[in-house]
């Protein structure tokens, strides 16, 4: 009795045979790529992502922060405790510090034990000296000060500073603190004290303006749970900050890389699915004889199905083993080689996550090879007597739907982004339809071109047209694959390029604020003398919006705008004749009339939208203690990713004459020139220099990581594309074999046949790559515009590069194949083996 176990050795024998015959190579390769790519996502990319997110958290000082003007409900802290979150508090307020009979208004942060929960707090004994990295609050009775306070108050370490009703001893200078990037424009320098000294200062009285920052870290599920519970209970004056609200550069790098990775893994799986379906179909066709023979030996079609299912299982097991291995190798590689430039430690690898890729890979194989499997099972046994008999085509829509459903299921599990999934699938179908139409037209054109002097050329052109259906299929397979590969390489290059640019060579890496008007010329000459380039010095005035068109903001602004940032704090106002770099006009035109009758301003777009403002409206500000009104003349958008001073409000020169401004600028300074900073600050004690380069280091490390993730995933898209190209290539050989034998009997020479076949590949390559180029341009335009939000430009280099490389690839790939199919003697027709 042939029970299922008895069939196993037979299946194993056939598997070994097909392995030797390289029939299963593409299938196996596709499986390895599938398994490897999904494993890498789980083993490596997920870890890179969480590491980068943690690094952004470093900038925030925590994973989640609750901002509140008063102490928050203790219930919330209880929730945090229940969720095992780690907490710290920072109470922030403005107060005057006294020392050496001098005073300075400062921002005081009274921080609790454990502050900051994430990120670095760098303290040095004296300003701009060597720093130590701390993760705690200053000892009780001491405080840390920003460098500017050292010069203004003429302090040294160990001096006493009067803070409210108590004296605290200077313990060090704050060189880097979490969130330094976002506190850029705080005019008042920061001092950090221990929260236990807060009461003694007696500064906080009922009614004082205080900001409470509650910092939390913990497991990501616990954090989301926490946010979910707390968010609905927030008062309008309270806010929850997460990592994406902070560092815009890193935040957008992470979001974009996530989108890229999602898109890539989706395309990888689609390409692999098609490659698997194609090579499984080819494999099945080569098994028809075997299947019929086994039926003669007395196997039922169920048993035949069992045998071929076993073979698939073998393929699956090997694919998963090899692919998993590749994933693990990548992961080890990452640990040993990349760890040098990835500063924050990666979370530990957890090999149990390999279960998910294993399941997904198995489902992918089964889903896409079942139609072929069913065909093998349905081979009529009469085929042993009549070769031409083929299984009835599995005209079962349901089976193809099954494959499609498989794909969607895997995607769904993997990315849970239905919008992206749907748009990519629809996009591909759309591209396929367009391609099919263009290809038909091109074939028609080519056929008309079959009047050249070369018989091989004419023959190849006629051949393409004669097998229209198959040619179309191959054209589609090639062009879509080339399209996907080109697209993903291109997007990657541009993403990486943009990121590099935002951290580029000549980007300013220091800010200088609080420059007095009478210091402007001197500072310019200081920079010139030291051969440092200083960007424009912008005057800056800070004002609060209090009214719109004469009406109080509280009533003039719609409810959803009430909580907008621009109403919570003072805005930076400047005046300028030039439109600053990175600014684009949205409505109205840039420029000022001469001597306008009233002050005119240009406002930042998002603020305008949030407050429901447009050109022609007027805004009432409070500047200092005075009021000032201006009319909106234009609306601008600002690229927040440039590290140059950005202003919400720009007024016409002269409009703010009555107010005294301070000046702000950004400049680039290399590490080796840092000594100059100390000089500068000594000479102009009121100036604050913000060392963005320290923040850049963090952003750079984040970008290095997301870039690595993007590179890694792109490798797999390319590998998947190659798998599909390979499968399609093999497919083209199938009927060439017989064709070649027939041609030989008709007297064609081997070189002639080989040449005409190579011409066919030439046409295929040129046609498919040029269609791919058109599609790439179209889709990148859409992608850049709507998903990645970067600017579109034509990629002229592609127009030559893509056809050339496709041609090269195809000729190389087909070289051996063409030799193989032209080699058999015409005898093979007469005497089937």
């Amino acid at each position: 009795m042939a029970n299922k176990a008895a069939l196993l050795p037979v299946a194993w024998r056939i598997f070994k045979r097909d392995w030797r015959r390289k029939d299963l190579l593409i299938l196996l390769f596709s499986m390895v790529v599938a398994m490897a790519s999904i494993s890498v996502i789980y083993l490596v990319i997920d870890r890179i992502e969480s590491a980068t997110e943690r690094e952004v958290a470093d900038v925030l000082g925590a994973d989640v922060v609750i901002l509140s003007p008063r102490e928050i409900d203790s219930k919330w802290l209880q929730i945090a405790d229940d969720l095992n979150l780690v907490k710290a508090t920072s109470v922030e307020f403005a107060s005057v510090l006294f020392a050496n009979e001098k005073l300075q208004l400062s921002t005081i942060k009274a921080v609790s034990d454990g502050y900051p929960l994430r990120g670095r707090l760098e303290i040095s004994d004296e300003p701009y000296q060597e720093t130590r990295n701390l993760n705690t609050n200053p000892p009780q009775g001491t405080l840390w000060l920003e460098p500017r306070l050292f010069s203004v108050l003429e302090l040294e370490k160990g001096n006493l500073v009067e803070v409210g009703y108590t004296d605290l001893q200077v313990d060090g200078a704050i060189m880097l603190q979490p969130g330094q990037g976002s506190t850029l424009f705080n005019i008042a320098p920061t001092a950090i004290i221990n929260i236990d000294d807060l009461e003694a200062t007696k500064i906080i009285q009922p009614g004082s303006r205080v900001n409470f920052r509650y910092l939390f870290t913990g497991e990501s599920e616990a954090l989301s749970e926490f946010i979910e519970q707390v968010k609905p209970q927030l008062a309008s004056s309270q806010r929850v900050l997460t990592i994406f609200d902070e560092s815009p550069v890193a935040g957008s790098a992470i979001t974009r890389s996530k989108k890229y990775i999602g898109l890539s893994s989706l395309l990888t799986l689609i390409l692999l699915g098609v490659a698997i379906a194609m090579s499984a179909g080819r494999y099945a066709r080569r098994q028809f004889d075997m299947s019929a023979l086994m039926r003669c030996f007395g196997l039922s079609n169920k048993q035949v199905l069992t045998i071929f299912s076993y073979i698939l299982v073998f393929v699956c097991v090997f694919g998963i083993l090899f692919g998993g291995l590749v994933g693990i190798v990548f992961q080890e590689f990452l640990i040993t080689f990349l760890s040098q430039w990835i500063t924050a430690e990666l979370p530990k690898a957890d090999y149990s996550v390999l279960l998910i890729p294993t399941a997904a890979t198995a489902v992918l194989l089964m889903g896409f090879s079942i139609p072929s499997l069913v065909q093998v099972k349905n081979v009529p046994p009469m085929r042993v007597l009549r070769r031409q008999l083929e299984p009835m085509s599995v005209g079962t829509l349901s089976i193809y739907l099954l494959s499609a459903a498989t794909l969607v299921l895997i995607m769904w599990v993997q990315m849970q982004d239905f919008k992206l999934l749907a748009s990519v699938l629809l996009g591909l179908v759309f591209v396929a339809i367009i391609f099919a139409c263009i290809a038909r037209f091109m074939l028609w054109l080519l056929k008309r071109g079959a009047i050249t002097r070369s018989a091989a050329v004419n023959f190849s052109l006629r051949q393409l047209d004669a097998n229209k259906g198959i040619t179309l299929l191959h054209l589609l397979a090639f062009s879509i694959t080339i399209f996907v590969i080109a697209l993903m390489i291109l997007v990657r290059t541009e993403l990486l390029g943009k990121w590099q640019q935002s951290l580029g060579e000549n980007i300013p890496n220091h800010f200088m604020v609080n420059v007095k008007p009478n210091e402007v010329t001197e500072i310019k000459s200081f920079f010139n003398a030291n051969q440092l380039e200083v960007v424009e010095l912008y005057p800056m005035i800070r004002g609060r919006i209090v009214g719109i068109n004469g009406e109080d903001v509280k009533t003039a602004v719609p409810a959803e705008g009430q909580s907008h940032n621009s109403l919570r704090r003072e805005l930076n106002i400047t005046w300028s004749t030039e439109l600053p770099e990175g600014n684009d006009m949205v409505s109205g035109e840039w420029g000022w009339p001469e001597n306008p009758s009233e002050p005119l301003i240009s406002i930042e777009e998002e603020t305008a939208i949030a407050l429901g403002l447009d050109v022609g409206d007027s805004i009432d500000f409070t500047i200092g203690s005075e009021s000032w009104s201006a009319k909106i003349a234009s609306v601008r958008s600002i690229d927040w990713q440039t590290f140059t001073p950005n202003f919400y409000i720009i007024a016409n020169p002269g409009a703010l004459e009555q107010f005294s401004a301070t000046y702000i600028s950004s400049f680039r300074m290399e590490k080796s020139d840092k000594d100059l900073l100390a000089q500068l600050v000594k000479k102009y004690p009121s100036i604050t220099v913000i060392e963005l380069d320290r923040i850049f280091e963090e952003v750079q490390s984040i970008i290095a990581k997301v870039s690595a993730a993007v590179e890694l995933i792109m490798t797999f898209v390319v590998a998947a594309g190659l798998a599909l190209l390979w499968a399609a290539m093999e497919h083209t050989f199938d009927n060439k074999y017989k064709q070649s034998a027939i041609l030989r009997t008709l007297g064609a020479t081997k070189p002639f046949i080989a040449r005409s076949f190579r011409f066919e590949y030439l046409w295929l390559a040129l046609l498919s790559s040029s269609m791919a180029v058109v599609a790439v341009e179209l889709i990148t335009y859409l992608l850049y515009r709507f998903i990645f939000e970067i600017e579109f430009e034509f990629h002229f280099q592609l127009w030559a590069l893509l056809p050339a490389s496709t041609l090269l690839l195809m000729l190389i790939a087909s070289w051996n194949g063409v030799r193989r199919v032209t080699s058999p003697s015409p005898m093979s027709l007469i005497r089937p083996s």
Partner: protein
Amino acid sequence: MLTAIKLGKRVKTGESELTILDDVSFQLSKGKSLAIIGESGSGKTTLLGLLAGLDSPSSGEVQLNGQSIFSLSEEQRAESRKENLGFVFQSFQLIEGLTALENVMMPLELKGDRKAKQKATEMLTKVGLGERLNHYANQLSGGEQQRVAIARAFVTEPALLLADEPTGNLDTATGKKIIELMFSLNQELNTTLVLVTHDIHLAELCDESITLSGGKVIESSVQMEQGAVANG
């Protein structure tokens, strides 16, 4: 042992219906050999397919050991093939990429036979290929390939062996040797043999013969006894 009763096969081709086989009846007892003779296109292969239960008839039936095979389910028919039938084909149908030995072992393994290797080796030795066990199909000549195929057919000791023009792809001398081999094994194992051929000389070696033309029996030495039909 093998009985065909009013076998007919019609296929639809577009609008019209084509009769490939019409009212074929015969009876063959155990250990005998039958030649099915006829020109190309006369319906020989079709008849053989029906006798093997590989295809189903439009009318009539086939009995093997008194059991009507088309009353069986597809699965039971497969089981019956496994137990009773062996095949030899014009185009050999060796499995490419497997050695001679592996080819012969295949039907035994499918039956779950533990002594597959031993039996296959013996049978290959018997057909004179003891030295070529590990050669692949494409390393053998046509005659050798067909001998492997015969070894494969006889190794399960089938009660009924069906051969469709087994010498059709071979030269006359080799063909003769192949037929002799088949007959000697037939005798040794007491197998019932059905041989399709268009070669009259080969047909003469068989105990019985049927001649087909245009799907009809035009000459037969195995005329059905009336009683057998009634009992069938």
